[in-house]
Each structure stands twice: as C-alpha cells, then as structure tokens.
C-alpha cells in the first residue's frame, strides 16, 4: 500500500512536468498572444515592443525554463489579460467549480446508491427497470444536451429553477444535476451489479439465517463490498468530471475554472493556462491518492 502511495506521489512531478511542457508548446506555437492584447490598429512597432515586454521574443525553450524556474518558487507569472498573479486568478475561479463538482457528486451518490441497492433487491421488478434505464440513458446522453433539456423542462416549461448563472442554492440545482447525471448512471450500475453478487454470497445468507434484520444485512454486510467499486468510479472519472465541468459551466453560464481555463487557452494567456493545468493535475492526483487510501480503509485485505 505504501508503495502505491509512494509511486503516486512520484508521479506528481512527472505528470506536472509533462503536462505543462505539452500545453506550453502547443499554446505558444499556436498563436501570438500580443495580437489579442493589442487594440485593433496597433502598429507593427507597438506589437514588437509588447512582445519584448512580455518576453515572447525569446526562444520557446528559454520561455519554458524560465516559467518552470519561477513556478518552483510558487510564481506562475502575471496573467496577460487580467494583470494579476495567474495563480491568484485561478484560485479565485476554483471555488465555483468545486462547488458545482461537489454538489454533482453529492446528488449522484445520494440518488445512485439507494437506487442501485433497491434495484438489486428487487431484481426484475419495475424499480429495477427504472434503475437500468437511468444507468443506460445517463451514459448515453451528452452532458450539454441533458443540461438544455433540464433548462427546457424546469426553467422554461415549469419555471421552478433559474436558467443559469450563480447565486442562490437554486442556481446550483440544474447544473449540478446535469453534471452529476453521468456519475449517477455509472454508480447506479456499479452498485446494482455488485449488490446482486454479494446478496447471494454465503456470509450474507448466513447473516439472514441468523435472523439479522434485513436492513442491517444490506447495509452492514452487502453494501460494504459495494463501496470499493464506487470509489474506483470516483477516481477513474475525475478526468471526465473536468470535461463535464467545462460543458456544464458553458451551458449554464456558470462562472468557474473550467470555462476560464478554456478561455485562457483560446486567448493564449499562458500563465493562466499553466496555473490551471497545475491546479487540475494536482486535484486529480489528490483524488486518486484519496481513492487509494480509501481502499486501504475499507478493505482490510488490501492492507497486507
């Protein structure tokens, strides 16, 4: 176990190095940020002077190394567009995204676990069919489409929730459901199939035979085993969560790092791109680390 965690930690610098290098190369090579910063009508001499000022007249490798050197000291540079430290900007955009992601995971988990368990216990009955439909549809619907259908249903036809923007708790509901739907589907499916397996296992039957109350059987004995795959899904889907976040933030005009980082790539705001990549990569690695740790806590067999 310690080895797993150790190798995860070792990955951190390599992942960061690789990702920043690739993105840096593409973004630098793909366009000239100065053209975006200057007013239309800037003269060539003005553009040249701006390039010099921002350091774009240097070879890319020098630019990258100097970025790297500064980043090691925690300095990601100043955003070209926003004129403030890139990391400050990124961290300022992060809470909205975390709020959305956390809410969507809560919703997904709160629906999928009871749904999966109920479906497994009532195999072949209507509720099982519902669970299967939820799982199948959730995995097949594009996130942006689901978001727009929800807007259509619950903001236009039945004006219960606001269509977009961030503000009250109600603003959070539709984007969180949109983003959480896919995970809901995955987890429902996972819980259902693991529960089906475990409910038929000997120790569960023994517990039942001993007269342990059904609720206890399900929660204590059977569900315990379903936790591992659920956590695996969380870890594996961390990457998809970001893609979903970008889309959900776009559909609902939700302010957040997903949208801001895409805008930064398009605007060639390299310090912000780099700081976002750094933050996202660290978040993924932390999630995966937590996943490893939870295996360890949940399943004693892994401890050996």
């Amino acid at each position, binding site marked *: 176990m310690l080895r797993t965690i150790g190798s995860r930690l070792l990955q951190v610098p390599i992942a960061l190095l690789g990702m920043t290098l690739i993105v840096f190369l593409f973004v630098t090579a793909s*366009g*000239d940020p100065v*053209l*975006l*910063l*200057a*007013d*239309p*009508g*800037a*003269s060539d*001499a*003005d553009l040249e*002077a*701006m390039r010099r*000022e921002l350091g774009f007249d240097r070879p890319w490798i020098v630019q990258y190394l100097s970025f790297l050197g500064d980043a090691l000291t925690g300095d990601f540079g*100043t955003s070209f*567009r*926003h*004129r*403030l430290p890139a990391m400050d900007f990124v961290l*300022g*955009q992060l809470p*909205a995204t975390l709020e959305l992601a956390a809410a969507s995971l809560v*919703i997904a988990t*709160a*629906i999928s*676990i*009871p*749904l999966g*368990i*109920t479906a497994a*216990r009532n195999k072949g009955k209507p509720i099982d069919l519902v669970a299967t439909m939820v799982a199948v549809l959730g995995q097949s619907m594009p996130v942006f489409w689901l978001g727009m259908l929800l807007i259509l249903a619950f*903001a*236009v036809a039945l*004006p*219960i*929730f*606001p*269509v*977009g*923007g*961030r*503000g*009250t*708790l*109600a*603003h959070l*509901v539709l984007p969180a459901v949109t983003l959480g739907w896919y995970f809901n589907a995955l987890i429902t499916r996972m819980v259902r199939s693991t529960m089906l397996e475990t409910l038929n296992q000997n120790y569960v039957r023994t517990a039942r035979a001993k007269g342990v109350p059904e*609720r206890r059987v399900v929660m204590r004995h059977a569900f315990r085993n379903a936790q591992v795959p659920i956590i695996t899904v969380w870890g594996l889907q961390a990457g998809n969560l970001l893609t979903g976040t970008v889309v959900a933030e*776009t*559909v*609902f*005009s939700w*302010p*957040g790092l997903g949208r*801001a980082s895409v805008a930064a790539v*398009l*605007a*060639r705001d390299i310090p912000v791109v780099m700081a976002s990549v750094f933050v996202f990569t660290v978040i993924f690695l932390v999630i995966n680390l937590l996943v490893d740790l939870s295996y360890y806590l949940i399943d004693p067999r892994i401890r050996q």
Partner: protein
Amino acid sequence: MTMHTIRLPRAALLSLGLAVSMATAPAAWAQSTVTIAQGVDPDVLDPGHDTLITSVSTMLNIYDTLVQRTGEGDLVPSLATEWRFPEPTVMELDLRQGVTFHDGSPFTAADVVFSLNRYVREENPLSIRPQIAGIIDSAEAIDDHTVRINMPTPQATIVANLARYPILSASAFEEMGEDAYGQAPVGTGPYALAQWDRNEQIVLESYDEHWRGAADVDRVVIRPIPEDFIRFAALQAGEVDIIGNIAPERVPEVEADPDLRVEAVRSVRNMFVGMNPNVPPFDDIRVRRAMNHAVNVPALVEAILGGHGYPNASPCSGAIFGYDPSIEPYAYDPEQARELLAEAGYPDGFTVTMWGPNGRYLKDREMQEAIAGQLSAIGVRVEHHMPEWSEFIQHFLSGDIEGMYFIGTGNPILDCEATMGYRFDSRRGGDFYNRPELDALIDQQIQELDPERREEIFAEIQAMILEDAPWIFLYDQEDLYGVNNRIEWSARSDEMIWAYDIQLAD
C-alpha cells in the same frame, strides 16, 4: 428505509425551489440597486490595458474623462471646464476644481498629464495606444488646474477624442503599482468599485462626493452572462434590470411583458464583409462589385435581424458625424453579378474562405451563413472559418486573410474619422487597403476644422470607397436592450451604459 432515502432528494429539491422564490423576491434595500448584464467580464479595470467596448462601458462609471458625451451625443465639459487653442496644434484646458478621487485625494493637472502621457507612451505600449497615438503627442501641466496638450497636426476630432481617455489617479497608481491598480481602480467617477468577483459580478457603490452630486442609484451590479438566452431569462426573472444584445426575435416577447420594455437605438457599429483586394479573385474590381450585387442586404436585415438594422452602403454608420445620407447602395441583381463574374473570368464562380467571429455581434453566425447562402446563387462557394472572438481577432490582426472577413466597426468618437483610421488609412494599419489619394483626403479632413467642409470631404471619401467596393457593404446594427420598467434609462448609440443616467421609476 430505502423508500425514504429515495424520496429524500426529491423533497430536498422541492424545498430548494421554494427557498429560491423567496430569495429572489426583491427586498426593501434592493430598491436602490440596479443590475446590468453584459456578455463578458472586463479583463482588468485599467483603461490602458482593456479596450473592449463592454469593459470601457464599465470603466466610464468609475473614471471621468476631460470631456463627456451626453446621451444625445453632445460634447460637454467634465473634468475640463473650458478649453482653447492658442495654436492650431496646442490645446489648453482649465480643470474643474474641488474634484476628489475615490480615495479622497484631490484631482489636479498632474493626474491628467500622467494619464495621457501613459496612454501615448511608445516604450512598453499599452492596448489603448492606437486610440491616442497620432492624435496627442504629449500633455504638460501649466499649473495645478491648467493643462496643455500638444498635437502632431491640427486635430478636428480632438474634443471628441478627449471623451474617451479616462483619467487615472497619478498618486494612487504610483503607490499601488500598475497591476494592483487595475484590480482596485481609483477614479473620480460617480461610482467606486466595491467588490469584484471575477466572471461573476462587479459591484459599484455610488461615490457621494462626486462633483455632479451623488447618483440616483446607490449600487450598481454588473454581471457577465455569456449565453444570450440565459441573459434574457435573467431579465424576465427580474434578476437583472438591463441586458444588451437581445435577440430580435425576442423583442415581441419583451414588449408583451408588462414589466419590461425594449430600448433600441441605431448603433455607431457598422457591419461589413471585407474582401482582400490584393489577391485574386478580389483584385478585380468587377468581382468585388459582383459580390455587392449578389447580396440582398434588406432581405438579410429583415429575416435575420427582424428588421432591427439599417442597410448602409457607407462604411460610416448613420449615427455618426460625416455620414453621407445620399449614398446609393449597389442594387440587388444576381443576374448582373453573374455577368460581372463572367467578364472577370469566373463564369462558374469560385471558392473562397470567409473568416468571422461566432458570438461577438448580434446574429453574427447566422448572418455569415446567410450571406454565403446568397453568394452561392452566383456560384461563389464560401468556406467558413468561424471561431469565437479571441481566436478570430488574433487571426484577423495577423493579416493572414486571403479571401473575405465579416466584422464590424465601432466608433468611440462618433466621427467618420475613426472609421477611416481603423479600416482605410494605410498608415494606421488600414485593413489590406492602400490608396494614396484616399490617404490624402483622410489627412485633409483631420486638419480641417470647419465641420461643413469636413462633411464635404467625407462625402467624397465615401463615394470613392463605394465605387471601389472593397467591402460587401451591409448594415448598421440596431442596439437592442431589454430594460425593466422599474428603472428609467434610454440607450445610447455609442454602446455605453452610464449608471449615473439611470433613475428608479418611482
């Protein structure tokens, strides 16, 4: 147990719904708050660095300028009370006394000198520099309340230009440093920045010591909402009071709502499709004219903009000085267009690329596709490149456009001269255009101080451009705003939203 857990989320959702309707009900204090929704958040609140029109609109609430333009378009004193021209290239201004910045410090000539010289500086140039270079050489203080501005040549539009250079606080700027100042600007304007949650909201509080007196509205919130449907829904829900760029097909819906109204004004913004005249096929004037004959502008404006636009064969908007109303557009005549193409050696048409932004202008994407649709009738096949704005403008400014481009020209000084500078003056980076005789006329009008004579020169310029047909001339936009009836405000043709002019209806 399980039934209970399943029901729980639903119940929670319902009660959430209730909580919302209570939260959005206007509380008593909200009476003096007005919320404005724009498409994008400013990058930074430093006018030197961010020259995007919506950012300028936000900043003109925080900063004052030497001269200001009223909603009717008149230029009136602001931080400058009077001005005179001791020589044709020298302007002297008396500054208003007793004006203070938001930090309480007094406004003096040093602030004006600092701001103008910063905008115009050559080394480490700012984004705003192209708007001031060639118009002002330098500024200097004569005494604490008098300033001298030196110009390279006589400038017919100097007063109008002074209405677009916000005045910064020299002392606050030095103290805070450039970057920090752009996050927490200090101006003399009627509103001071209270809070800025990036990409979410800018909160402005009325500055009670403002020299014109405190504004009617205590607090102004400016929210960036990129999706136009969501912006519209926020207006309907009463979450925001003013939204710009409402889609024409929503106009009837807004008008039917007893709480809302539409404010419309002919914009200074003129839309066109430029053709690069330096490379085939557009190096042939017959091809460029054929393109104009092939596009039915009134039909496009009617269908796509719901009639909310003004077909215009001049590059200058009908809302600005110098526009020649007698100008006659190319007639819509696909037959003649085909003949012209055949004469030019393209009897079967040709394939050409068209660059244009997606999501920047009212109905820009539909408009580009519709223009392409009409061109296909004369055999011109269009390949679109339609990225979002930042991608587009980057490509456009790099000059790498072989075919056509769809874009609009704004006009911050409400004078045809700005259009010439942006699009035609070869010495000021005019798009692909280089005609010495036109450049000579442009120089003439800049230095001509008699407005009537200037109008005559502009008429000559417009006739020359129309004949040469470097563009497919399209239309002036009509700016459409959705406004909540609880406020009094009317739209300005220069795309600015001045919070000081907003009043609550009761």
